[in-house]
Structure formats: C-alpha cells, structure tokens
C-alpha cells in the first residue's frame, strides 16, 4: 500500500485518535473553526493544581484536523497552563512529522483551541 497523503504519524493519530470525547464539567472549553470552512474543533480541559490534568476533543474535519486535535491533547496533558499556552502550531505539526502546506491551518486551529479553552478556564476561574 502506498499510504495516504499524510505522514505515518498523522495517519496513526487519524486512525487511532487519542482523547476523543468530552469532559463532563470541564474547567475550560474552547471551540475554534467553523463548519463552513470545513473544520471545527472543540477542546475540553480539566485543570488541577495549575496543570492540564485531562484533555478531550471532538473535531469535524479532515485527516490533518483530527490528527492535530489528537496530538494536541497528548501534548498539553500534564503541562502547566503557561506551558500549554506556549504551544505553537509548528510544534504540533512537527510532532506529527509535518503537514502538507495547505493543511498547516489545522495545526493553527489546534494552537488556537488550547488558547480558547484556557481563556475559558481563566474566565471561569479568575485568579
């Protein structure tokens, strides 16, 4: 088999996405993208002791969007809020072994989803 248009890592996360689902009573929820663009990501985070203790997602979108979501949840788990906020789209796409040029926006969406979820957390839990 020739393999798809994506790296093995992307395909692995697409076929076996980590942390799909939702967190009941999440501490923060971020939603980015919109269906008209073809991609939409909803990220749920649980925060304990200043760290992301759990993360789950639901995504409507292409292979890169699903893989980016899956990879992102893996990357932020256990990170402090500041560390999680600092994650860039390049880190996500690098972790996936690279994305096709036209799919970079999927990793951007992942980056924005963390920020949105953590913004939501901050709003709900003012310091």
């Amino acid at each position, binding site marked *: *088999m020739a393999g*798809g*248009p994506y790296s093995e890592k992307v*395909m692995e996360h*697409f*076929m076996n*996405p980590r942390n*799909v689902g*939702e967190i009941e009573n999440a501490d923060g929820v971020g*939603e980015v993208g919109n*269906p*008209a663009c*073809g*991609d*939409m*990501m*909803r990220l749920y985070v649980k925060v304990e002791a200043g760290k992301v203790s759990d993360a789950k997602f*639901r*995504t*409507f*979108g*292409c*292979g890169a*969007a*699903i893989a980016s979501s899956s990879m992102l949840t893996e990357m932020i788990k256990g990170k402090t809020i500041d560390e999680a906020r600092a994650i860039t789209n390049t880190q996500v796409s690098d972790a996936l072994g690279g994305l*096709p*040029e*036209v*799919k970079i*926006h999927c990793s951007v969406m992942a980056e924005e989803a963390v920020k949105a979820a953590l913004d939501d957390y901050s709003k709900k839990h003012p310091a």
Partner: protein
Amino acid sequence: MAHIFFDHISATPVDPRVVEAMLPYFGERYGNPASHIHDQGQTALRALDASRGTVARMIHAQPGEIVFTSGATEANNLAIKGAAAGSKDKRHIVVSEVEHFSVLNALLPLRAAGFETTVLHVDRDGRVDPDDVRKAIRPDTLLVSVMHANAEIGTIQPVSDIGRIARERGVLFHADATASAGHIPVDVDAIGADLLTLSAHNFYGPKGVGALYVRKGTRLESLIDGGFQEGGYRAGTENVPGIVGMATAAEIAMAESAGWAEKLAPMGRRLWDGLATSIPLLHFTGHPEDRLPGHVSFWVEHAEGESLLLLLNMQGVMAASGSACSSNLRGHDEEDLVASTVLKAIGVPSDICTGSVTFSMGKENTGADVEHVLSVLPAIVSRLREMSPTWLDYQKQQESQG
C-alpha cells in the same frame, strides 16, 4: 485487503489490449509522422491516420474533424480560446456554472481581453435549462459551452436541445464529453456540436492524449503554434503511441460500452438504494435517472469528505470527494481547498458540516464491490460523526425536540 476502485472519473485503468496496441510504437515503430518520407515516419503517419478514423467513428465524425491534443483540458482550452481568437466581432460566451475548471478558467484571460460571459445556473439536479440558453443568447454571442455529463455529480445535460438552439441562432456549440464519451453514446450530429472534447484516460485509454472534434468550417485559431500538424489546429509532434492507444480504447468502447452500461446501471441503483436505507442524513446529488451509469454521488451531514475518503481507502475503497481535479492537497494556499463549485451550484448548504463523496464505477467493478462498500461505509460515517462536535449538538437538539 480489498482493492476497489470507485474513482473512474479521475482515472481508468488502461485496458490491456490498449497497452498491447501501444507497445510497438515505442521501441520499434518510433517514427515521427512529419518525417514520413522514410519507412519509420510513414509507419507512424499511417497509424496516426488510422487512429484518427477510429476516433472519428466513435463520435460519428469525419477523420479530418479530429484534432488530437494532450487531453481534455487542452481540448477545452483550444475550443474556448481558439473560437474566441477566431471570432471577428462576436464577443459573448455562454457556459454553465457546473463546467469543469478547464472551461471556466479558460474564460479568465478572455474576460480580461474584453469578452463578456454569461454563466448559466443549474437546477437542484445540476441540469441546465435549454430555455435559459435560449434567453442568454445575444446577437453578439459566439459560443455556448455545456458539458455532456458532469463527472462530480453524474448528471447528463440536455445537450441535443441546447445544440439545436445554438444552431438555430447561428451560435457555435461546444460540448465537453470528457466524462461521457466511451461510456454512453456520443454523436456529434445528434448533439449538434461544432466542438466536442474527448479524453482517452477517461475510457480506459492512456493519460496524455485527448481530442477536440472541430466541425468542418468552424473558425478556430490554434492555441499551440509551430509546425504544421493536426491540420494547423495544433502544432507539435503527435503522441503516436498515445493516439494509437486512444483509438484502441475507442474501438473497444464502441464494441463493449453498451454492455458495460447495462452492467453498471443496476450496480449503481443497488448502491444508491443501499446507501439510502443505511445512512441517515445522506443526500444524493445529480439527476436520479439521467446520469452516468455506475455513478453515485452524495453528501452526508456531520462527516467531512476527506476523512471519509481516508477511512474508505483504509478499507480498500478508492473514491473522490468534490471534483477529482480540484481537490488539491498540493496547493500553495488554502484558497485551493474551497468547496466544490458544482456542489455550491446545486445548493448543497455550505453553512452546515458536510462531506461529499463521488463513487464512479468502471467496467472491472463487480456487484461484490458494491456490497463491500455498503458493508463498510455506514460504520465509517458513524465513526466520524461520533468524533464531530456538530453531531453531538445535533443529537442533543433532536433529544430536546423529541
């Protein structure tokens, strides 16, 4: 694993008889038809002449009316730009909004050069109303271009009616028969076409070769200039093996395509019916009856198209989403990923989450292939929906309503 190719609108496997016919024209009969004073060139020229006759026969044309090109895209460009360049004072062109990009984008430089265009809307089944063509024609209309069949949604256009109207009004008619020729009958006189596009790789011939039918007497300027080949309409050494392959594919299609259609039409209906009953929120696209045999296209809510194709591929099923030639992961910016213009034209909503799929079967497919697809697709759709936030919302909404 299964290897089920349901993407014949993007490519067809070259028939072994075609390959066999082409083979001698690589290493043994390698002459250039233009250099026909000697044996090698003469052999090539004779093969070219014979091929021209065969391709002409497939569409009920005269051999001298066939201009070989590098494919459908070039033929469409030659038809549109060549007719425009050959026009004295008529500067208006009518096309449908579901034409292939090789027609629509060929209009861009013409518009820049002062041509006016009317882009006809289609109905929900993707059909052009011939009456709209009649209304669109103006005194300065040069050309009407409407495809015979749409690759993405399978709809067959009422080309004969359109051709008759164009003829009555003294307007050239170009029909893009890329998706239809070799599958359903194409007769340039019945269609009333002055120009008609053919592509070998769409009917089990090789890539890199197509043809433009040019009715005798049609004013057309060449797009590619140089030596005196193809009656002056298309310069450049002819792709002799490719052309021999196209002719062989045409020969096979003339003999066998009625049988393929007879086999594929019920397979298409079975797939259609099976999908209708097994997948909720699935909407078929294109005309329910007037469509290419073995062609089933649809969109589903709450599952994205590319993901559907990736998961289908993991199950050995190869299909297309949107136009095969427009979906492009290799573009340089995201503009290249815009939704299919065809789906937009037939009113597929762009504000809800949809994924489109085109299954196009070919002569090598079997009923078992259809059953395999029906056995795997519902689970694939469910799996993606389970992952989608919009599906979750939709279900909650349904619950609260019910």
